[in-house]
């Protein structure tokens, strides 16, 4: 391939090549990083990333707000836990069934609540999370109450159990990359543009032929589906589920991940999930005051890098590069 042809090929397939590059880089990590504890943190990042990608479609692209996605994450986790332990359903069908049920729940919950916007929508989704959390705590017979459920088998593909941090790593990051690809595909389509349009101006989007109501419910459902799959994988990864993991503070953490990574920046979702998941470990002695540090970081990000960490850094680098190359051109001219 001649250089210009290669350049245009790269330009046209920029997104696809970036995903492949990231997949290759990620697949090499376990070869250099043998510490299972560190791999465990990376695995948690992948699990969070799956939820955050979906939530970013809902918050960042469609311009809505949800403070209740930990409920969908939890429903996914409990669904898989109950189906695999009490009914001996294999993990993959259990995950699929659960995700379908959660998606249906999202339609039922979303149809009335998505008529709201802004603070009202935030409160409604928060309320949903509180209700679901209460069910996890109170419905002893099914959910195991405050102590939760344990003895959840590891995830299995075609009867082969995925055990050990390294295999888990490939499973979870593989799943995260699939969801990244699906999300990137969505935003580069007419559907994605419709969501971006309705985020900015619902009246105008409708005048272009975008079904605003359907679009909002659909993207809410999609994000709930992502969260449910993330929850199922979480349950199989941990082997136990407890209600505390799925309270409203977990929902707020997910929103913080979206904001830090950049609203509407899907690559940033990976960064946001990584930063927020790593933070408690990086804080060391400050860990007790983690909530204060989170709060300060979010305020700082919103003031200094309002479009999120990754999006702003990339833009900064781009403009630096552009200035550098134009300076070079002036130099040679």
């Amino acid at each position, binding site marked *: 391939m001649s250089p210009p042809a290669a350049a245009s090929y790269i330009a046209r397939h920029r997104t696809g090549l970036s995903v492949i590059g990231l997949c290759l880089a990620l697949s090499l990590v376990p070869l250099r990083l043998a510490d299972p504890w560190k791999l465990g943190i990376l695995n948690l990042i992948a699990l969070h990333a799956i939820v955050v990608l979906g939530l970013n479609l809902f918050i960042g692209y469609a311009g809505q707000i949800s403070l209740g996605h930990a409920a969908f994450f939890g429903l996914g986790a409990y669904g898989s836990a109950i189906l695999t332990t009490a009914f001996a359903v294999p993990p993959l069908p259990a995950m699929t069934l659960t995700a379908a049920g959660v998606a249906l729940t999202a339609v039922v919950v979303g149809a009335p609540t998505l008529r709201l916007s802004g603070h009202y929508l935030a409160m409604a989704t928060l309320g949903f999370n509180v209700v679901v959390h209460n069910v996890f705590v109170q419905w002893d017979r099914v959910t195991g109450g405050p102590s939760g459920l344990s003895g959840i088998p590891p995830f299995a593909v075609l009867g082969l159990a995925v055990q050990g941090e390294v295999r888990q790593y490939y499973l979870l990051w593989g799943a995260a990359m699939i969801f990244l690809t699906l999300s990137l595909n969505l935003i580069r389509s007419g559907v994605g543009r419709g969501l971006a349009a309705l985020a900015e101006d619902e009246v105008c989007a409708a005048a272009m*032929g975008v079904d605003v109501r359907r679009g909002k419910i659909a993207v809410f459902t999609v994000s709930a589906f992502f969260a449910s799959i993330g929850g199922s994988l979480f349950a199989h990864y941990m082997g136990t589920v407890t209600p505390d993991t799925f309270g409203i503070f977990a929902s707020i953490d997910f929103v913080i991940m979206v904001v830090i990574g950049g609203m509407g920046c899907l690559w940033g979702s990976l960064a946001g999930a990584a930063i927020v998941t790593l933070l408690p470990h990086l804080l060391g002695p400050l860990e007790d005051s983690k909530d204060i540090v989170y709060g300060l970081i979010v305020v700082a990000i919103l003031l200094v890098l309002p479009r999120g960490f990754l999006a702003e850094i990339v833009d900064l680098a781009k403009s630096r590069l552009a200035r550098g190359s134009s300076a070079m051109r002036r130099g040679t001219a």
Partner: protein
Amino acid sequence: MTSVDPNGITLQASGLTKHFGGLPALHEVAFVARKGRVTALIGPNGAGKTTFINCLTGVLRPDRGSIIFDGQELFGLPSHRIARLGVARTFQNLRLFARLSVLDNVLCGLSTTAGDSFLEAFLRTPSLRHRERRLRLAALEALDIFGLAGRADWRAHALSYGERKRLELARAFVSGPRLLLLDEAVAGLNPDETERIGTLIRQMQRNGATLILVEHDMDLVMSVSDHVVVLDGGRRIAGGPPEDVRRNPLVLQAYLGKISLTA
């Protein structure tokens, strides 16, 4: 002049009434837009012109009346359904998607052909890729026609006012709508930009577009319209060819106040 052809009617509104609380914004308005013609809707401020357009496009729901578009009743349909039937519009106060690129804004104008299946979008099927390429070309062509070819990658908020007006036109025009409603396409523009948009409108007219023009700029109205309808206080007070309407005493009175004959 061709004779009046009943089959040439693209849109026919009759008895259209809309009240805001007790305030009548439109009262029993009748209106016809013919295929391939430019129909202008004029009237003093507060006459109900924008309310009329909003009722036609489903932004507002009229209280009573009927709107037949290509044989189909639009009354009560939601905005997006009306758009999907081939009715495109611009807005009096620019409504661009400010954070999207200029090209994406125009692509939004093609939403009705871009498809709305989430599954297809997630999988990025070959047919979707093919369609996206085709839509991109159509959008770039529209940008070229409206003099925005060099701005495709800009964010819409970075454009000048005149460029934004043209971008709105390009976004409404790109889908090749069966009916195009322009709400004050030249409001607030300098004479050069006004002339430029006038030329674009005449170009669309020559290419057989069916237009409804809500306009304050009388020079533009007189030079491009085939038919003019005048609203005042929510009522239709006159309608006819531009030169007739210009001499109609009721119209003069609506615009200038009652003319005393004592002089």
